């Protein structure tokens, strides 16, 4: 299925892009992140990130559907 991924901050720099659409067999954000770790030199691991699906915080085992938008969220630093 097709997944739309957006990258922010340190993940954007390490992926070398802000967004991409991928054909993936990952059924959860956890599985998707594992696939992306093999592709990009991410220094953060999943335990340090949160995940959003379709612009809402979701659990790592949330089932993904075709066309979902996924964002992995590094530790925040507003303020």
């Amino acid at each position, binding site marked *: 299925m097709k997944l739309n991924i957006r990258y922010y901050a340190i993940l954007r720099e390490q992926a070398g892009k802000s967004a991409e659409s991928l054909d993936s067999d990952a059924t959860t954000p956890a599985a998707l992140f594992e696939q992306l770790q093999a592709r990009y030199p991410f220094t953060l691991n999943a335990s340090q990130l949160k995940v959003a699906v379709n612009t809402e915080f979701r659990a790592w085992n949330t089932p993904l559907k075709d066309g979902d938008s996924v964002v992995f969220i590094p530790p925040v630093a*507003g303020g």
Partner: protein
Amino acid sequence: MSAPVFTFSTVALDSNDLRRQLADPASGGFCAFEGWVRNNNEGHDVTRLEYEAFAELAIKEGQRIIDEAVKKFGVNRAACVHRVGSLNIGDIAVWVGVSSGHRDEAFKACRYIIDEVKHRVPIWKKEHYVNGDSGWVNCERCAEHAHDHHHGHSHA
């Protein structure tokens, strides 16, 4: 009561303009917090900052925080504006304002909003240092900081 609001700005914040939106005939107290860009962090000399946000989710989460503060402390009005883009030393990075019947709830709601924004809203800060290096705060040394929610990057 007007709708509480969490917003982003790509231009410099003017606290006089911002406080006017919280004027309310039922309010006898106003409290604001401004986070300023500081020239040092954890022993490094900082020259400027860049803020980046996942805007769609950040606005939702920021609005939830403001709604929580209004409900929890019973204040009349509350707002928070966060900068994105490149900021220089001394610039206002974040502004929080609350107006309420009395001072106590204004102080408490203001504190609640800034603390929750720092912990929950998807905003990232990249520091640029005097020596030419740069780094994403809380991300480059995450092994040390990932689970320390009280780790201080306060501008206060």
